[in-house]
């Protein structure tokens, strides 16, 4: 018995408080109670861990070697003694008997109480995979876990951390500093997805990879591999195996409610408490991570402090009431600054202010609603995190400082009028640098504007300010406004509302700066929205695909439904399917396969299209893979009738049958189609080959048309039979089929590399001019060959039948329903 005697006399008169859980909340609650009324309770604390109360959040620095255990102890043995608290360590409570008001510990010790406080924290969540119980698989929750990790790290080797959230990344950081080779496996596509948005998550991933960790996102664990009775690695669902000498599971936590539940207290996700932290039993209170208050469970310490205050107020007779908390998080990985607070998921009426400074690796996003901050995500520069958080908690009206808000406290509060960004720029001296990339001073920009550059684009092209990374675009715009007043010309049309860059700039910079992923483009080019919109995403996806064939991984979620499902969506939500018929030719086997599909899937209509193919209508999304499997079986592949890609090559019968035909237009059409199919383009692309100038294949209203003549082939470009009919322009005349093919490939590639997304060849040609296109192709004798070679190179990766992949089960999730809800029949009875 180690309770000091000075308290013994009084203890019989005092109420008995028993605390289950010697963690952060349990002890803090006791501290708060002692601060208010040290004489009131006779206190016993049960702890499952055999040690005094320590600062759990500092386990990460202990693992990383930045702190020792002694440095993170919150209350020493003396503290317990001085306050007459009995600590029963290493002996967890097994049972609460509410009727007798007694708790019973594992060792059999029974302790009666007047008031009971449950502060059992949470249990780490263990994913139910094979091998989870192997030695070498650890969680990250208490000092014992840290000791296990340190022991493993002492041997060097490989560590796998499952879970890329706060805890997982801190564990990975520590193990990596301790010399292990670390791989983080994260189920979601971005790290810390609950605290960070996609953009910040991407920056974080890039930085961790730079530090030598391997980060696998979108990776699902299949099982933990064993060798000689110890963990040896992790196998993912995609078959990949990662060797491991230790596996840390950090996939989440669950309020520890077992004790409360078996004692019959109301529990949902956590132990249910009211505003005074009282459970469904008036004599039992609960606090910390194990509770659920107004529907919420918390996994951070700040809310616990607030809970402990109301708990102590209540127990000492001056009830205050806990109102719930708004939380903020920081990642404790040295050298990486990440901050997130509140609700940054946007929502109705929410506005985003986004600032991206690619050069400094900074991303900041503040979310506003009704002129108040509701959320913030900061990466790279978190100095203002607390200021935003404070404004958020106080629900301050920020309309006055809105313009400067994103630049932080110092700037925004730099005295009323100065919050006007124009004023700040006006105050700069003439030799102040505006554009860091190109070394352009304020004076030079102003001179350029005075000399007649009235738009952002003009400034960009004339003095290069803001023409590279674009982070100074805002400054240049301010200078335009200051210098010209109302005369500022609206710049060239930007790609969409999310950016100040035009299509051309975005394309050019993707290549110049070697941007290879969508979040990277958005960061480097200062996108003002977190994840783009339905206009820029498909465009960027295409630009990346065109710039890095074979390298860039197509992003399904940025594709329009037709391309995602490889079929045409129709007005009733069903799809139509067009198999390829090379050059418009078909045969009995194909016709039979089509007829069978029509019958088997009850397709209500089949139609011959304008491009000489057969279109099968009315197929349901879930039937598509089966339809394709049947068509594939007859040797047919996707006709891409749905895509921004090559549609058809229309032909006439030509010299083989027609009495006027000069060349084999059908055979040439088939060859062209076999060369060009499958290629993604800025827009749909149609080709035709006519056997003589009678032009039965209507080659002069196609994107690329070939008209055969006695002496060879006339090549036509930029035709369109759509809303605005446009006849082609003659590009050139060539003598052989090989030259036709070479020029066709070259022209397509020029279009692919230059046109804006969703710009067909006709408007593109009119915008650039026929002369420009001819110059691009013919000024240098080698360009046609080079363009064609680039086209053929990219075709190596493009020419595979998307139907075949899907028919074999790839991405069946895109086609199937999640499930079907069938209300029980009796419900209708």
């Amino acid at each position, binding site marked *: 018995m180690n309770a000091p005697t000075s308290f013994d006399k009084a203890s019989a008169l005092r109420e008995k408080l028993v605390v289950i859980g010697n963690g952060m909340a349990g002890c803090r609650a006791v501290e708060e109670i002692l601060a208010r009324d040290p004489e009131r309770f006779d206190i016993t604390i049960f702890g499952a861990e055999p040690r005094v109360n320590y600062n759990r959040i500092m386990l990460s620095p202990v693992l990383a070697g930045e702190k020792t255990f002694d440095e993170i102890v919150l209350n020493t043995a003396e503290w317990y003694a001085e306050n007459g608290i009995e600590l029963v360590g290493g002996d967890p409570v097994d049972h609460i008997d509410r009727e007798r008001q007694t708790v019973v510990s594992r060792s059999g010790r029974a302790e009666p109480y007047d008031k009971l406080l449950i502060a059992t924290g949470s249990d780490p969540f263990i994913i139910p995979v094979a091998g989870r119980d192997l030695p070498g698989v650890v969680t990250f929750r208490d000092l014992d876990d840290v000791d296990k990790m340190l022991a493993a790290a002492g041997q060097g080797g490989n560590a796998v951390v499952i879970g890329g959230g706060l805890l997982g990344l801190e564990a990975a950081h520590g193990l990596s500093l301790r010399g292990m080779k670390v791989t983080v496996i994260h189920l979601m596509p971005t790290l810390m997805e609950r605290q960070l948005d996609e953009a910040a998550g991407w920056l974080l991933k890039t930085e961790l990879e730079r530090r030598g960790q391997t980060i696998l996102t979108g990776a699902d664990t299949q099982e933990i591999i064993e060798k000689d009775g110890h963990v040896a690695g992790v196998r993912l669902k995609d078959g990949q195996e990662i060797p491991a000498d230790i596996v840390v599971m950090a996939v989440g936590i669950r309020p520890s409610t077992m004790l409360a539940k078996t004692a019959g207290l109301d529990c949902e996700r956590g132990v249910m408490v009211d505003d005074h932290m009282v459970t469904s039993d008036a004599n039992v209170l609960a606090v910390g991570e194990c509770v659920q208050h107004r529907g919420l469970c918390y996994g951070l310490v700040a809310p616990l402090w607030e809970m402990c205050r109301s708990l102590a107020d209540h127990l000492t007779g001056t009830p205050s009431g806990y109102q719930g908390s708004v939380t903020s998080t920081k990642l404790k990985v040295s050298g990486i600054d990440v901050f997130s607070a509140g609700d940054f998921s946007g929502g109705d009426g929410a506005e985003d202010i986004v600032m991206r400074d690619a050069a400094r690796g900074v991303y900041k996003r503040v979310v506003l609603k009704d002129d108040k901050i509701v959320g913030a995500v900061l990466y790279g520069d978190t100095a203002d995190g607390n200021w935003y958080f404070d404004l958020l908690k106080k629900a301050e009206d920020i309309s006055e400082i809105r313009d400067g808000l994103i630049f932080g406290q110092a700037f925004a509060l730099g005295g009323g009028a100065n919050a006007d960004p124009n004023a700040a720029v006006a105050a700069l001296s003439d030799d102040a640098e505006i554009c860091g990339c190109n070394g352009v001073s304020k004076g030079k920009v102003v001179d350029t504007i005075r000399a007649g550059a009235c738009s952002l684009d003009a400034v960009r092209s004339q003095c290069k300010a803001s023409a590279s990374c674009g982070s100074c675009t805002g400054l240049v715009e301010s200078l335009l406004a200051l210098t010209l007043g109302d005369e500022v010309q609206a710049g060239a049309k930007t790609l969409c509302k999310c950016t100040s860059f035009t299509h051309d700039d975005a394309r050019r910079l993707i290549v110049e700066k070697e941007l290879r992923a969508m979040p990277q483009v958005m960061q480097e080019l200062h996108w003002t929205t977190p994840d783009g919109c*339905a206009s820029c995403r498909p465009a960027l996806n295409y630009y990346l695909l065109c710039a890095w064939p074979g390298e860039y991984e197509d992003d399904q979620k940025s594709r329009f439904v037709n391309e995602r499902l490889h079929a045409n969506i129709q007005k009733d939500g069903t799809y139509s399917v067009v198999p390829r018929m090379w050059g418009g030719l078909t045969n009995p086997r194909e016709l039979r396969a089509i007829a069978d599909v029509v019958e088997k899937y009850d397709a209500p209509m089949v139609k011959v299209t304008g491009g000489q193919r057969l279109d099968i209508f009315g197929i349901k999304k879930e039937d598509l893979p089966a339809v394709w499997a049947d068509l594939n079986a007859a040797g047919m592949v996707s006709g891409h009738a749905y895509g921004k890609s090559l549609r058809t090559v229309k032909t006439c019968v030509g010299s083989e049958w027609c009495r006027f035909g000069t060349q084999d237009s059908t055979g040439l059409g088939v060859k062209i189609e076999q060369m060009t199919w499958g290629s993604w383009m800025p827009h749909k692309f149609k080709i035709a080959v006519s056997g003589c100038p009678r032009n039965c294949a209507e080659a002069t209203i196609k994107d690329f048309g070939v008209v055969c003549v006695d002496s060879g082939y006339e090549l036509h470009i930029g035709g369109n039979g759509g809303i605005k009919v446009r006849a082609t322009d003659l590009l050139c005349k060539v003598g052989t089929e090989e030259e036709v093919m070479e020029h066709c490939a070259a022209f397509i590639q020029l279009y692919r590399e230059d046109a804006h997304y969703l710009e067909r060849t006709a408007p593109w040609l009119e915008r650039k001019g026929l002369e420009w296109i001819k110059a691009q192709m013919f000024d240098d004798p080698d360009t046609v060959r080079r363009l064609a070679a680039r086209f053929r190179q990219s075709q190596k990766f493009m020419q595979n039948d998307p139907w075949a992949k899907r028919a074999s089960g790839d991405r069946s999730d895109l086609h199937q329903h999640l499930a079907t809800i069938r209300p029980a029949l009796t419900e209708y009875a």
Partner: protein
Amino acid sequence: MQAKWLDIGPVTQIEPGMAATLPVIGGEEIAVFHTMRGEFYALVNKCPHKQGPLSQGIVHGDSVTCPLHNWRISLRSGEALGDDEGCVPTIPVKVDAGRIYLLREAVVPPTPAQRKAA
């Protein structure tokens, strides 16, 4: 007793930035969305404009752009955004321990007995 929430499976079955469909016998098909920021929403799978299948649109922020005529619909409120007007019913969703739940009464019509009791 019937659970208040219908379990429709693990969160991992829908990739962020995508949606999935859930037909209801005797009711409207439901579209369940997973945004790029990891949030889940459910709407009736019919655009207020001309009944386009919203589940097949492009998801960005917390809105979806309908695949038929590009109306933008809020995933939170079901309302058409911008200059368009119209609204599609939303279904309350919650995520717990890695599983997605829909509010049962918003999906399944109440039985006559339940209706009487109410």
